[in-house]
């Protein structure tokens, strides 16, 4: 018994040192002002328009990128299920491959494609497009979908490919056509995969500041950028922490909603 407890010690230290203490620090900074006196100001600051607007854009963009990733990823996962095992391995490999490269480099590569003199902008201009791509919400959305798509595909693939063929055959035996098999059998059974995919795309999209920094031309501020700048350029840790807490609330809410569906999914399975 004693040995078992000892084994968990490294994890305990890890969790306390790198999760619990930092969280307490953020809580502390979030609820005091620069003199150390208690205040609600850092939390209520979210209601100021210069913070509400970035939060709104962040929520909208991360919701959009999650939906897009799901729309792209789900059919792919269905195809992968039907594909030969060797072939599906290759396809997954191709989708994962870019993740071996640094995330920043890939985003800078997109900047080069979309910015002045970039291949994509040149083609767009040849087709009559006027204006800039970099610095728009669209460019940021593209960056999010590109960077986070593998995080959607993998859990979807895992849950869909794990469905037993016999289950589907039983459905067909009982008279279900292919559409019904997909919507009434595969879809409910893949809910856990959808949930974890959605979480893994939505949460990093909501908190990102690098993608918007690079592809947004610093014109578009997401809530992540605001928080990052409070810590770096403005050196106002109190406000930065307060806004981080608000963001955490949004993440917790989304997790809670998703978890409810997840439970239903599990009982169905």
């Amino acid at each position, binding site marked *: 018994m004693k040995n078992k407890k000892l084994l968990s010690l490294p994890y305990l230290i890890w969790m306390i040192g790198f999760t619990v203490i930092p969280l307490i620090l953020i809580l502390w900074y979030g609820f005091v002002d620069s003199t150390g006196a208690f205040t609600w100001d850092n939390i209520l600051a979210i209601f100021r328009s210069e913070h509400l607007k970035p939060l709104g854009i962040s929520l909208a963009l991360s919701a959009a990128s999650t939906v897009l990733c799901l729309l792209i990823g789900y059919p792919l996962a269905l195809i992968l299920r039907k594909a030969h095992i060797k072939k599906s391995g290759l396809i997954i490999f191709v989708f994962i491959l870019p993740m071996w490269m640094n995330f920043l480099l890939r985003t800078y590569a997109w900047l080069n494609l979309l910015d002045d003199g970039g291949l994509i902008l040149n083609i767009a201009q040849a087709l009559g497009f006027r204006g*800039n791509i970099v*610095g728009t919400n669209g460019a940021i959305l593209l960056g999010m979908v590109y960077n986070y798509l593998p995080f959607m595909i993998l859990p979807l693939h895992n849950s869909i490919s794990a469905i037993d063929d016999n289950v589907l055959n039983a459905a067909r035996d009982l008279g279900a056509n292919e559409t019904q098999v997909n919507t009434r059998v595969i879809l409910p059974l893949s809910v856990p995969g959808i949930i974890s995919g959605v979480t893994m795309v939505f949460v990093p999209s909501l908190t990102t500041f690098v993608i918007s920094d690079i592809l947004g031309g*610093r014109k578009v501020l997401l809530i992540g950028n605001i928080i990052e700048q409070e810590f770096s350029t403005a050196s*106002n840790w109190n406000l930065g922490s307060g806004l981080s807490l608000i963001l955490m609330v949004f993440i917790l809410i989304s997790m809670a909603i998703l978890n409810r569906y997840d439970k239903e999914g599990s009982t169905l399975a």
Partner: protein
Amino acid sequence: MKKRILAVVLCVLLASLAVVPGCGKEEKKVLKVYNWGEYIDEDLIAEFEKEYGIDVIYDTFATNEEMYPRIEADSSLYDVICPSEYMVEKMMKNGLLQEIDHTKLSNWKNIGESYLKILSDYIDPDNKYLVPYCWGTVGILYNTKLVDEEVDSWGILWDEKYAGSILMQDSVRDAFMVAQKYLGYSLNDTDQTHLEECAELLRQQYPLVKSYVIDEVRDKMIAGNTALGVIYSGEYLYCLEMNEDLAYALPKEGSNVWYDGWVITKNSKNVEEAYLWIDFLLRAENAAKNFDYITYPTPNVAAREFIDEEILNDQAVFPEDEQLKNCEMYIYLGQEAENRYYELWKTVK
């Protein structure tokens, strides 16, 4: 002088250069120098070492803010440092620097009077702490192929004609400076109604701006598709070399003028060597050589005889005193005022 990506790379390279071992006979004299990345012609370091038999330990930083806490923790860490003027002010106030004895600098006279005066007026009375090294202004870099009118006012940055083709600085003070000068205010103004007026002006500009930039302004202007960009004058010669269509204008409403310069730390253990270093760099021919390499304007008047006539006559690099009459230096406004700037800046985007 702003951070450059290359600075990091250079830092590593230089650090490895700096560990060339001495012969180990008797204790060799050393000098610990802390400078911006890419901010010296490295040949000069070798020449200095050879001439005086002093080992130079040379390190670089990318931002003033990165340098400051290290010196605050231990001001004997380096002997000579080259910060920007506003950071010198802070270091002065916090007692991290020692006064400089001008009589120990035989080349002190090489520095132009007007440069010393403005520094003395704003931050360093009687030039007791800072020996100016490079200086410059903030202005508009424009592409003559895309802009065929004369550029002489910040107002052009609000011209609908150039919508989507304007690059603004992303740092708070620099962005506000443009609006403040355009409206005729001081760039050290802290009056809330004035600041709100500036923020409103910047909000009107927002839809016309292509992106808010820091160092990328160089590359984006060189690429040639952008009409106007707010930039540090020191970057201009480099940009011109890369793209001859570019020109620099210092707006008539005035601008920010900035300085970087050498200071000696309070607890320096190699003060004599530090004087030798500063004096060495103040030599006219060395200053000229250095200018050739880093292309940031030098306040060393004597160096001008070694500099190309063409560059000397370029008012972008060496503006006349008349052009500088509306220019001001940033002074530290205190945390409360800086916060107000920043809060308003967030409402712009």
